[in-house]
């Protein structure tokens, strides 16, 4: 064992850092592991904001926030978890402000709040169009203040389980090379999303679902894995997010014929309809041949140069850099892209998983507050509130329990597995498998799901996993061997894809992000008002778990 701590947090985005701060403040010896420097975490890319019923822009209260979230989740969210989130959110946001978060302000100097999709009040606190960046900075500042140890550029590869509880992590030191074993009384997985399963995604290269796969590999169930949210305006070709703010400012969505096609799908809300509605409308246009190279057009031109520069500066810069398009003169090609994974590691309201000593928080986890569809602004809030709760519980548990053991056998097994991989010289390099996985997931498990396509995708992923068995890492060196870590990430992604397909096939209804217009176009509360659970025994095994309901009975979801 190279080091030992009370609490070890894997991942240093908003969820991981908030957890570490809380664990420290409770009095535990805490450390973080992150495969990229904390401030480089993808939380920093969030633009829109964070939801809390502060009531600064109009009357609001946590109860209303909770109701909007329950309804938005298409009733798949656990209502106890949602109520906790909405109750604790205001104080958690004030806390961030006291630490120094540079929020935008109202006329009278309070935290400004903007309206966001499907919310009954302007509830989204924000910092211009860099909310995530501001939160990552302020959390890192608090980490530095507390001098919390961070194993930077350490890649978590395996969890150590002994005596029926999680007791540490085996990682690869990316910068210098070499396996490192870090023991801990409790481990918190806060490794973020898995958008890299798809070709077009708003997610960073680091979003490869590592924590979900780590949990899966030690027998911990994942929940609602079929629920991947697609964002309607991601930039062709790479999937970089174009903010909802554009549509808020009045941008049009056009098809190849120059028609504002939402007239046919959401005649009242038009471009301001909810994410899933617009994504489906776009995909239908594209599938029926009214797209342009697989895209539709987001037209800002009528807003005028002044407004575009003043209010949508960031968007213009992104469009110019990544699509070579200046939105003042040309419409922006956009399409639906994988954005947020509602599913993840199954936890209780303290972030605890089915395995003693193992916790999870943030996008990696599924508490579940988002159910089948996440509302904009709720993900950042979840990272903070549930990061805090997981940090507190993990620390308290660790402080009242004692030993940490890492059996020698586990380490030597990991070591030989890695040596074997690095020694291999004959075989395929990972990138073709990775690209094929991402492309086929997009085709067969995207905005719309069909029985036959999902089945085909299952077979494709089986074959890709077969190919992956003989994958070759070309870089044999020790220094910054990202060729190695990218191969390990691909292994994680392939397992998650298989889980998603199994859950998608089992959910024979349409709910939230899971849309099956061809065979099961309606929500079916009688049979499917329940979570999918998946565990791994030589392959994904499906199970179900009831949804927790407190106050709200399912109703039809109309906006």
């Amino acid at each position, binding site marked *: 064992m190279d080091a030992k701590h009370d609490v070890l947090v894997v991942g240093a985005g908003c969820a991981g850092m908030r957890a570490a701060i809380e664990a420290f403040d409770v009095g535990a010896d805490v450390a973080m592991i992150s495969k*990229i*420097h904390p*401030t*480089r975490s*993808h939380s*920093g*890319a969030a633009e829109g904001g964070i939801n809390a019923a502060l009531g600064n822009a109009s009357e609001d209260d946590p109860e209303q926030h909770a109701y909007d979230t329950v309804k938005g989740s298409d009733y798949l969210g656990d209502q106890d978890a949602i109520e906790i989130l909405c109750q604790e959110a205001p104080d958690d946001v*004030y806390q961030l*402000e*006291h*630490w*120094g978060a*540079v929020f*935008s*302000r109202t006329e*009278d*100097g*309070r*935290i*400004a709040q903007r309206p966001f999709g499907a919310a009954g009040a302007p509830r989204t606190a924000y*910092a211009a169009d*860099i909310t995530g*960046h501001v939160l990552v*900075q302020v959390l890192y*500042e608090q980490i*530095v203040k507390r001098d919390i140890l961070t194993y930077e550029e350490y890649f978590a590869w395996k969890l150590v389980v002994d005596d029926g509880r999680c007791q540490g992590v085996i990682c690869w030191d990316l*910068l210098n090379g070499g396996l490192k074993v870090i023991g801990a009384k409790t481990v918190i997985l806060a490794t973020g999303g898995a958008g890299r399963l798809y*070709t077009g995604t708003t997610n*960073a*290269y*680091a979003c490869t679902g590592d924590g979900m796969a780590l949990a899966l590999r030690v027998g911990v169930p994942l929940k609602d894995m079929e629920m991947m949210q697609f964002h309607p305006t991601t930039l062709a*070709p*790479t*999937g*970089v997010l174009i903010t909802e703010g554009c549509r808020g400012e009045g941008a049009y969505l056009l098809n190849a014929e120059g028609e504002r096609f939402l007239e046919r799908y959401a005649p009242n809300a038009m471009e301001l309809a909810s994410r899933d509605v617009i994504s489906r409308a776009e995909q239908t246009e594209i599938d029926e041949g009214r797209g342009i*190279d*697989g895209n539709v057009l987001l037209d800002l031109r009528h807003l005028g140069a002044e407004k575009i*520069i*003043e209010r949508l*500066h960031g968007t*213009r*810069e*992104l469009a110019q*850099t*990544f699509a*070579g398009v200046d939105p*003042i003169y040309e419409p922006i090609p956009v399409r639906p892209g994988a954005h947020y994974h509602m599913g993840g590691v199954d936890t209780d309201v303290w972030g605890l998983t089915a395995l003693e000593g193992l916790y999870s928080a943030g996008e990696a986890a599924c508490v579940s507050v988002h159910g089948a569809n996440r509302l904009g602004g709720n993900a950042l809030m979840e990272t903070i509130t549930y990061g805090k709760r997981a940090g507190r519980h993990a620390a308290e548990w660790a402080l009242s329990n004692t030993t940490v053991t890492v059996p020698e056998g586990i380490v030597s097994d990991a070591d030989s597995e890695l040596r074997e991989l690095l020694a291999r010289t004959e075989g395929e390099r990972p*990138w073709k498998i990775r*690209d094929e996985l*991402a*492309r086929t997931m997009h085709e067969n498990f995207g905005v719309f799901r069909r029985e036959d396509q999902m089945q085909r995708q299952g077979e494709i992923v089986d074959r890709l996993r077969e190919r992956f068995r003989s994958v070759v890492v*070309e*870089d044999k*060196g*020790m*220094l*910054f*061997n*990202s*060729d190695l870590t990218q191969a390990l990430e691909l292994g994680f992604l392939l397992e998650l894809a298989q889980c998603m397909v199994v859950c998608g096939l089992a959910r024979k209804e349409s709910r939230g992000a899971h849309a099956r217009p061809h065979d099961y176009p309606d929500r079916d509360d009688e049979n499917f008002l329940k979570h999918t659970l998946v565990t791994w025994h030589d392959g994904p095994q499906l199970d179900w778990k009831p949804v927790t309901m407190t106050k709200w009975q399912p109703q039809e979801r109309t906006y």
Partner: protein
Amino acid sequence: MEAATQPREKTMKVKVKIWRYDSQTGERALKEYEIEAPEWVTLLDILDLIKDQQDGSLAYRKSCRMMICGSCGMRMDGAAVLACKTRMYDIVQAGHVPVISAMGNLPIVKDLVVDMDPFWEKFKAMKPWLQPGYEEPPEGKEYRVSQERMNVIHKEALCINCGCCVSECNAMESSPEFLGPQALAKGMRFVGDARDGATVERLEDYSTEHGIWECTRCYFCNERCPKGVDPRDAIAKLGAEAVNEGIDRDMGAKHAKWFIKSTETTGWLRETELVPKTQGVISAISQMKFAMGLAVKGKVPPPFPPHVAENVDEARGLHKLVQQQGRQGYEGIVQGERSLARLDHHLREDGEVPPSEGSVGGMGSLTSADITPGEEPTAGKAD
């Protein structure tokens, strides 16, 4: 990367030279790569294609690929850029073969990956966390701060810790202990924050031997920062605040030292910080606001900083802007990114800048220069 999966897209042949380096063996070599790529690619996409298809051992950092995580700082033709912000199309069209190397002023670990520890040590030396003052937030809710007051640190808050400024800093080259542009910009982020109660202690800390006054005012940090933070301006503001607080104990001597250093390195001395130097930045901003307000009503000429006034086009553009906005124009100064974009746009509309030029940002200088990593930079630094 996504390149391989796009339908029917135009491609081009891209050539780059990359300085490969291995700190364990000490081996270094300039290697040329040629690869077929879609026309939309950035430098980061090119590195990805090379790593996938030609050489899996190429080392570089990346994550967000959208200019926000700060991972991908490196040099192109000797000038620091974000790889994900650098479009290749124009470079290829110009027939140029850029030379890619690791950032400067930081030890190289492998290829384009530098050891960021010294960078973060300086960041930490700034005590970069809010130290609340005496004022309690009302009713346990948020501190009340006006947007105008918040805007004072708007630019500093944009920093993504990429290191591009540090890579090009002249003072750090001659004095590695210098706190440097990024750390000092972070310092300003707290000094300028109304909620922070440690302004004086901070200014004293930042004014010691390797602090504010060691900057040679070469402006390379401003020029290379991909996010419009303008670290040199932040340093000027800190300097002004320090003077304002009477912290300039041996200012005379310091002044002289500066002058010599700055003229040695850059050949000339800039005076942008004239206004804030004598008055302190907060009061300078409020004065600016007052004067700009008058300018809107057409009473007095706007008080442009001297270096802006030198450039007639820019001054004209700025003036027009203030008129058009008909609102407190100081925001245009504080929010540098937007005003520059607007300026750029208006000048183009007026045909004063040909559409192919202008400040797109992030593109390396096209004067080719083979900079060997770890050695004294030789070219590509002139602006």
